[in-house]
């Protein structure tokens, strides 16, 4: 038995290593590129021969990247907060409240998610120019929010459905108004769901390229993925590969921090002990 167990473990270990290497190799490659100096950039080595921070210094030298970083952080955070707050309330209604047109609402929100975003870019471009929010933070926050809400509602309503009805009834009898019951009992219990949703929405906003490139024209609202596309080499004949790699590495950092920070809050089984047992 122990022999079988060992070979089994070994086989899994091999599979795991292969999968992890496959997933992380491009990341390592881009990280390696970002530390190479321009002369060795194309030598094809996976480990830089001369380590340099020149590329990083380069991207932080101009306002092009730093401004985009500020835009990215601001827009993604605001869109995430709004989407999660609205999503929480909508998901609660979907999971708990009976109201006419509920199926229609769910259907509509699904519909939004079904449209390929590319088909909406041109109309959005025109609309935003006409009402004057083109190339502003608001102009990006609104579409981000709209496209992440269906996801938020879906994930969150699944979490709300898991919360026993009795808890809410108990809160009501204990003297809570519906709003108090929602805030002090339901939301704390759905916290893992709220944080999971927040992470997903944030990643979606942070990584979006399509809306960012189409709905911005200047530094005032351009986010990092779009800004990277506008990077230029130091001369006309030079590829900005080094700077692009450095920027790509830099923008993964907030995501990692964000996920690590909220992961602590995603405690499985938070509702255990509520009922029976």
């Amino acid at each position, binding site marked *: 038995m122990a022999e079988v167990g060992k070979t089994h473990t070994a086989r899994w270990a091999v599979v795991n290593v292969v999968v992890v290497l496959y997933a992380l190799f491009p990341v390592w490659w881009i990280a390696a590129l970002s530390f190479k100096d321009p002369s060795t950039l194309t030598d094809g080595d996976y480990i830089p021969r001369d380590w340099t921070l020149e590329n990083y210094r380069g991207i932080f030298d101009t306002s092009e990247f730093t401004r985009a970083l500020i835009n990215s952080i601001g827009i993604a955070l605001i869109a995430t907060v709004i989407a999660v707050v609205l999503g929480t309330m909508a998901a609660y209604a979907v999971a708990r409240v009976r109201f006419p047109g509920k199926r229609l609402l769910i259907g509509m929100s699904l519909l939004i998610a079904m449209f390929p975003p590319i088909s909406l870019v041109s109309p959005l471009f025109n609309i935003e120019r006409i009402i004057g929010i083109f190339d502003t933070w608001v102009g990006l926050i609104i579409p981000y929010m709209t496209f992440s809400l269906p996801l938020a509602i879906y994930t969150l309503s699944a979490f709300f459905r898991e919360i*026993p009805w*009795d*808890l809410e*009834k*108990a*809160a*009501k*009898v*204990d*003297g*809570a*108004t519906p709003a*108090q019951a929602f805030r002090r*009992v339901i939301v*704390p*219990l759905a916290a893992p769901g709220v944080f999971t949703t927040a992470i997903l929405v944030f990643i979606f906003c942070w990584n979006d390229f399509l809306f960012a490139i189409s709905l911005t024209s200047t530094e005032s609202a351009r986010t990092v993925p779009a800004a990277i596309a506008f990077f230029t080499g130091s001369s006309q004949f030079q590829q900005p590969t080094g700077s692009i790699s450095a920027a790509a590495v830099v923008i993964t950092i907030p995501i990692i921090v964000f996920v690590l920070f909220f992961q602590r809050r995603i405690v499985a*089984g*938070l*509702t*255990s*002990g*509520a*009922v*029976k*047992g």
Partner: protein
Amino acid sequence: MAEIILEGVTKRFPDGALAVKDVDLEIADGEFVILVGPSGCGKSTTLNMIAGLEDITEGTLRIGDRVVNDLAPKERDVAMVFQSYALYPHMNVRENMGFPLRLARVDKDTINAKVTEAARILDLTEHLERKPANLSGGQRQRVAMGRAIVRDPKAFLMDEPLSNLDAKLRVQMRTQISRLQRRLATTTVYVTHDQTEAMTLGDRVVVMRQGLVQQIGTPAELYDFPRNIFVAGFIGSPAMNFLNATLENGALRSPLGDLPLDDRTRQALERQNAPREVILGLRPEAFEDSALSHDRGRTGPVFTATVEVLESLGSDVYVYFTAEGGPATTTELEELATDSGLRDTGADTHQIVARLDAATRAREGEPVELQVDMAKAHVFDPATGANLTHPVGMD
């Protein structure tokens, strides 16, 4: 503390289903009232209407001197204990118990004092800082009780609070609840499907079936004078035996033989214009080993039965036997059999059970002479289910 008065309270769900129909019930201040019945009889809906968790379709509900039909649960000042306990998993025991007080904006010192006192009464003092997930079933149940008592509410509403506990703990908690209720003297409405709980806990018991109140009375009244065949079959364990019988010349022709009626029963039956075909109801203790009852100078019709199964409990002996002609069936009895799961076990409902004195000589597989105490017999109308021997004007 307050009285609770239900007048013609009716609940109709949006899909048209009638859950509770025309319930009239006056619960005195400090009284312990049990709502009991098989699942789906409307007992929990009635409790939820008192709590304010369900709207009342028709009728009025008064708590104290206020009509509370349209008040939110928080304005009714009642506390509820749920079958699932419904403890807030993200709060520890202290926070759980203090939650209603915090919502009522009671100051911190008072909350602390009240929670500590409740914890002392319920023996939870050393668990105050623990989360519900780390408590045993019995402890969770007590926390749920604690959350109800810290508030000093007008009434306690309990929805099958013990049904998630194992049998031994349930008996312990039953006495604890009873003691607590007596000590606090708070009006209590308690819902259960367990007739033993109903009989042991309540000052008065309300038996419900299909949304209708069947009978309201003290446990003894329900046991001795059930108003209809449903109450008779529901209250008591083992249940009452029902047999088809025919009224002839002042006697009952039954599968057990001809049973002469005593004067009280005969008069009652005449008064009620009893039909010829009736159902005879005999509780297990209406039988006795005739050898023993003769010694005690009791008289009554005697018949012989072959003991199929004998269960000795030490203090009593239960003997099971089959009577010719099969058991009586009515819709009420079918419903009870389904509810108690007898159907599913494939148990032989034809069997009659008799409770005999432990001194009986009855042996499994051998015949025994049994005497019937006709003073304890009930006669039911098969069509209406009414107890024809029920003393008029009892309630």
